[in-house]
């Protein structure tokens, strides 16, 4: 009996320990992870006391700042090239996009997009010197354009009355989807990518990814910070094919999110009742698979990156605080057990419909 109690206690201890959250008080806005270099990169806001207006290179497991580059403005959006050799950085104000060579972690080039601000941009997969850019002013987009080797291409698409502010390129590089995150209509527009610029493909579509602020792509599916999944490219009509029930488990619209090939899941970092969670949704049928609870009080999660099966990085806003922080989370065996148990329940036949 005593042996059994001891074994049970050991098992419980084993299950309950192991999770670790390292909090680094750096006021980052965005963060990105490069598997190729096994480094994390963070865009730091102007009010950070130690690294204002900087790009940091961090150890992705413990958050140690290894290198930093001071910029001439507050960094906004980070995009890696497909081969992960370069990182592009746009600014919260101003028309510049800085290109950073990641191996040496040095700024190598800077693009200037006229007199506009950059609302969003994307790097084409086949040419890391071709950028698609939403240009605008005071948050209002003017047009969507292409730059090749820093040269503005002649075919451009006017934003009209739409407030496009997010771009995602089709997997085969032939099209880009422009998303309007500013209006209640949540409009979307498909654009064809040409050699000398862009052209509108078809109609503007309403209510495509309602409530979303940011979009990413997994294959040819677009997904957003609200859990919507849009088949934007396979037909002339974009189709909202799924909605992960993220809104049921978070009290803040803003989330950090990423599709993880390692977990075969859509992974969301989010807050609920001022607690921070990492939640998983099945990669094919979008079912909720479970959550990891972090031991930090967080009001909003701004960004998330998956490092490996057990390590995650989040950008969060402190509860009752003004500054953001970086969280480096190592999952426990209990976390993994929860996820595996739910995955095995789902495995009982939760395939895509029609399978």
């Amino acid at each position: 009996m005593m042996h059994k109690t001891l074994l049970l206690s050991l098992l419980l201890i084993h299950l309950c320990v192991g999770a670790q959250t390292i909090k680094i008080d750096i006021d980052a806005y965005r963060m990105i992870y490069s598997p190729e270099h096994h480094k994390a990169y963070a865009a730091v806001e102007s009010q950070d006391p130690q690294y204002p207006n900087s790009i940091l290179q961090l150890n992705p497991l413990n958050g140690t700042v290894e290198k930093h580059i001071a910029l001439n403005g507050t960094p906004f959006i980070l995009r890696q090239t497909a081969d992960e050799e370069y990182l592009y950085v746009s600014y919260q104000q101003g028309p510049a996009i800085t290109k950073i060579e990641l191996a040496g972690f040095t700024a190598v080039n800077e693009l200037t997009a006229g007199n506009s601000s950059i609302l969003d941009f994307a790097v084409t997969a086949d040419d890391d010197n071709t950028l698609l850019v939403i240009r605008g002013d005071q948050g209002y987009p003017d047009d969507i354009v292409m730059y090749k080797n820093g040269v503005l291409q002649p075919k451009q698409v006017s934003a009209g009355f739409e407030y496009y502010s997010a771009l995602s390129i089709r997997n085969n590089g032939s099209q880009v989807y422009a998303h309007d995150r500013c209006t209640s209509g949540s409009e979307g527009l498909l654009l064809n990518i040409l050699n000398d610029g862009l052209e509108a493909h078809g109609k503007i579509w309403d209510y495509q990814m309602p409530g979303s602020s940011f979009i990413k792509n997994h294959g040819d599916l677009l997904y957003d910070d609200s859990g919507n999944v849009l088949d934007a490219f396979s037909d002339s009509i974009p189709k909202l094919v799924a909605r992960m029930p993220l809104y049921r488990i978070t009290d803040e619209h803003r989330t950090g999110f990423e599709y993880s090939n390692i977990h075969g899941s859509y992974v969301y970092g989010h807050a609920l009742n001022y607690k921070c969670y990492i939640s998983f949704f099945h990669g094919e049928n979008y079912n909720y698979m479970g959550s990891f609870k972090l031991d930090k009080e967080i009001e909003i999660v701004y960004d998330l990156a998956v490092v490996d099966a057990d390590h995650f990085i989040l950008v969060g806003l402190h509860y009752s605080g003004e500054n953001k922080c970086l969280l480096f989370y190592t999952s426990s065996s209990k976390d993994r057990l929860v996820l595996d148990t739910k995955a095995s329940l789902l495995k009982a036949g939760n395939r895509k419909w029609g399978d």
Partner: protein
Amino acid sequence: MIKKYLIAIIFSVFIQTCFGRNVISLPFVATDIGYSKMRGKLYALVDALDPAYGNRIVEINPTTGMVERSLYVGTEPAFLRLTSDEEYAWITFDNIPFVRRINLDSFQVDKNVYLGTTRQYVAQGHGFSTILAYNFTVLPDDDNSLVLGLQQPFNFAFDAVTLYKNDSMQPVYIKNIPQGYYPFCFEPLSRGNYILGHFQSNLNNVFSRMRKVENGIEFVDMNDSTADAIFMRNFFKVHNDTVFNAQGYVLDASDTNGLKVLGKCENQRIGDRHGFAFSQMHNAYIYPNLTDHSLYLTFYDKNTYQARDSVLLFEYPFYQLMMMLELEVIDQTKFAVLIGKDYGDFYINIVDTDPNGTGPMQADQQPEVYPIPSTGKIIVDGSPLHKRICLYDIMGKLLLVNEYDGIKAEMDLGNYQPGLYLLEVIDRNHKDISYTRKIVLQ
């Protein structure tokens, strides 16, 4: 195997016997349920967050509460409607622009209707939109005809009432309803030639009548005959062109000039009465009756609308149970209910109010019914215990009652139209024990 054991353990924990009633509480949140009398199965749509059955349709054995089959259908399934022949189930979704049909034999999705083809309905000046179905009904005698209420996603902006038929949206649709009384729910009348819709607010309680035409559906008229609207969910049901709603009103909808109030199943108890039904088996309207600590079902006479009996389902403090969303009558004493607190999560409870008394006929006591299909003659080869044969049409209307000796009966049904019918054989000693069989006349 592990899954089966796990489910069995969970069920055994939840199964409770109280005061002579068997109550099986299923451990998942459901959004809708439907019972197939012919199949003897309960079907449910499971909430998206459930780890085992989320976003699936499940087939439940109502005797054991066991999930026998399940199928992933899409994210956030909302409404479930069985076709009148109970061969298929149609499903709509909360946030994706699809309607899907499940073949209940193979338990596979066999139709996937994309609603985006209705984009032409969107008002001028907007972009084009994909469309959601906010509610719908399946027309009788046609597994492939739906009347759908459409809206823009995430934003209840009425778009149209439309008819899906022959694998496509029909071009004639209803874009405007007078005074903006857009119906929130639909039921077929006159075997599907007319469709009744219902709008309700705290001031208005309005039925809209619509008519099926060659290439779609058209608006006919409105009727505000129930007058004293109480704010309740838009919900009504139809039995043989008699309409009954959540407030207990019973209306005659057979007159083409409009609806006429026939009476009211009076009920002063607290709680919303969403889960209600007309039961052919009980020959009564059944409404939930939620007191401050118990949930009853009350049976109302179909002619006088007076309460004639009540049965206790279970005791439940009111603060833990605020609403009964759905009611399915399984047999004389067994009911499936979808209950929940307020408008939150709803759970399925299967309640046998008299577990030692009645139920479906055991397999070894069931009669042989042949030939199926038949050109007219049907033979029922039964046991001495069998007493009565009842024939119903697919809408549940009683057509014929035949008393017999229980050994063998030959029935000439040559005068009836070709189609599907239900034949019910009732036990001699236990009038509540019956066997139902689908027959086909050619």
